[in-house]
């Protein structure tokens, strides 16, 4: 007996999928980024002979092994929920992306095997360290490939490819208009997200520990995590711009919804989170420069200036374009969309803000790396600097969740109709023939 069109009481089936996927992605991204950072750290430990790198890599690898089950369980639950709640939609995806899903499954399998082997042979391969490091990087590679496969599906849902023949369906759908920028955005994001989380964890442990050697270690770990977090964050605006440009060209209604329309508040939220991340990171760097082994007062003064510029540029990014702030909850002032706020428009102010933020970020990271070359006195960081690290970890999670919501809500446009595959499959799983660029989906007996 068919189970029919199921719904979920109270929260509805859309929220079920959103919750499972967003939770899963927070773990999946962590695992991919952490494996790559841990492998890099192990390599650095091998080259520099500094014990902190090795200790950190091993502990992180252990945490990844333990965490793997949570991420995988959520993935399986998500697929089960999708098959049960959106069976028609899932069958359409399977018809297009069968090979992609198959490759993803094997990449996932490869990642599990190599990650477990990597951690388990840590001592056995202690005298063949190069080989062991390669294990870590291969595990990271498998993770990245799995991410690439699912990015093809996720980007296709927002910007379905223009396909007229069945023969082109798989290849063109895989390399749809926003697949490459999304994949690049997530590739960089892996490192940034995990870096901030590592920094936050180190800050928490630093404040709690009573042992001097642990204080030194966690102080170093906070510095190491934040370098990954902030170092990769400042690359993101350029790649994010490329991604948004792809969306604007291929799905202009979606672009307008999230950038100019009723859902543009998600971007205002996003830049608030990024403002906190940038200011807290720069403030941490300024603080840390006080403890450089070789005193660098000029560098420190320059970084104080950079902190001021960071604050200025982030404020420029936050200013909303008009007084129609969050119409969904009635947060509208003046004449709403007609009340323009000074310095709020995208061009030129947001561009100046984002480019300025990047340039200042590169400048401050360069200064900080210059100071790192001669080293720091570890274990003397202030309480506030560790709170800055912890707040970065908190806000990077909000950034991830907000970005995920933004991409998925972009297909809603004005909810009339909302789409599962933009312009092709509606939220109620019915097909739309007119205007769907991927013709085989709507041709009976072929794609869908």
């Amino acid at each position, binding site marked *: 007996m068919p189970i029919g069109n199921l719904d979920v009481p109270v929260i509805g089936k859309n929220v079920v999928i959103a919750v499972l996927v967003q939770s899963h992605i927070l773990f999946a991204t962590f695992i991919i980024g952490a494996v790559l950072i841990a492998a890099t750290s192990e390599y650095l430990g091998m080259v520099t002979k500094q014990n902190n790198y090795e200790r950190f890599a091993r502990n992180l690898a252990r945490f990844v092994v333990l*965490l793997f089950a949570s991420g995988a369980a*959520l993935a399986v639950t998500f697929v089960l929920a999708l098959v049960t709640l959106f069976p028609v939609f899932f069958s359409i995806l399977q018809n297009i992306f069968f090979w992609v899903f198959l490759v993803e499954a094997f990449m996932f399998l490869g990642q599990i095997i190599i990650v477990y082997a990597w951690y388990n042979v840590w001592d056995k391969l202690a005298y063949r360290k190069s080989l062991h490091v390669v294990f870590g990087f291969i595990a990271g590679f498998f993770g990245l490939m799995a991410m690439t496969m699912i990015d093809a599906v996720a980007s296709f849902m927002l910007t379905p490819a223009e396909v007229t023949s069945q023969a082109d369906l798989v290849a063109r759908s895989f390399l749809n208009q926003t697949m490459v920028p999304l994949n690049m955005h997530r590739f960089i994001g892996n490192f940034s997200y995990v870096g901030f989380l590592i920094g936050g964890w180190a800050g928490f442990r630093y404040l709690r520990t009573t042992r001097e050697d642990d204080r030194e270690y966690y102080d170093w770990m906070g510095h190491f995590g934040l370098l990954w977090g902030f170092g990769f964050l400042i690359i993101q605006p350029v790649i994010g711009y490329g991604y948004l440009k792809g969306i604007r060209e291929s799905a202009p209604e979606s672009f307008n919804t999230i950038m100019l*329309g*009723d859902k543009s508040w998600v971007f205002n939220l996003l830049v608030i989170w990024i403002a906190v991340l940038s200011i807290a990171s720069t403030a941490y760097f300024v603080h840390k420069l006080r403890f450089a082994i070789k005193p660098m007062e000029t560098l420190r003064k320059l970084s104080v200036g950079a902190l001021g510029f960071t604050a200025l540029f982030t404020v420029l990014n936050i200013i909303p374009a008009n007084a129609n702030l969050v119409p*969904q909850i009635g947060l509208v002032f003046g004449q709403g*969309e007609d009340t323009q706020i000074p310095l709020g428009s995208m061009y030129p102010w947001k561009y100046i803000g984002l480019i300025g933020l990047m340039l200042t970020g590169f400048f401050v990271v360069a200064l900080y790396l210059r100071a790192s070359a001669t080293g720091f006195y570890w274990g003397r960081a202030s309480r506030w600097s560790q709170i800055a690290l912890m707040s970065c970890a908190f806000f990077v999670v909000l950034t991830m*969740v907000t970005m995920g919501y933004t991409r998925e809500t972009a297909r809603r*446009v004005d*909810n*009339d109709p909302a789409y599962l595959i933009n312009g092709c499959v509606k939220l109620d799983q019915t097909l739309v023939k007119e205007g769907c660029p991927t013709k085989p989906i709507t041709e009976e007996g072929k794609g869908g």
Partner: protein
Amino acid sequence: MELALLLQEGSTGDPTAIGIFHFFAGFFLIITIYSSFLGFTYWIGKDE
């Protein structure tokens, strides 16, 4: 800019109370699942 305003015309977003409830319920669940799984992993991993 006119194009943007034209596209927004008649836009309703998702202004219902149930929509707002779904948004916050979803967010709460994500954060709960995330923090509890992380906490659990930390708990089973400590005592080295």
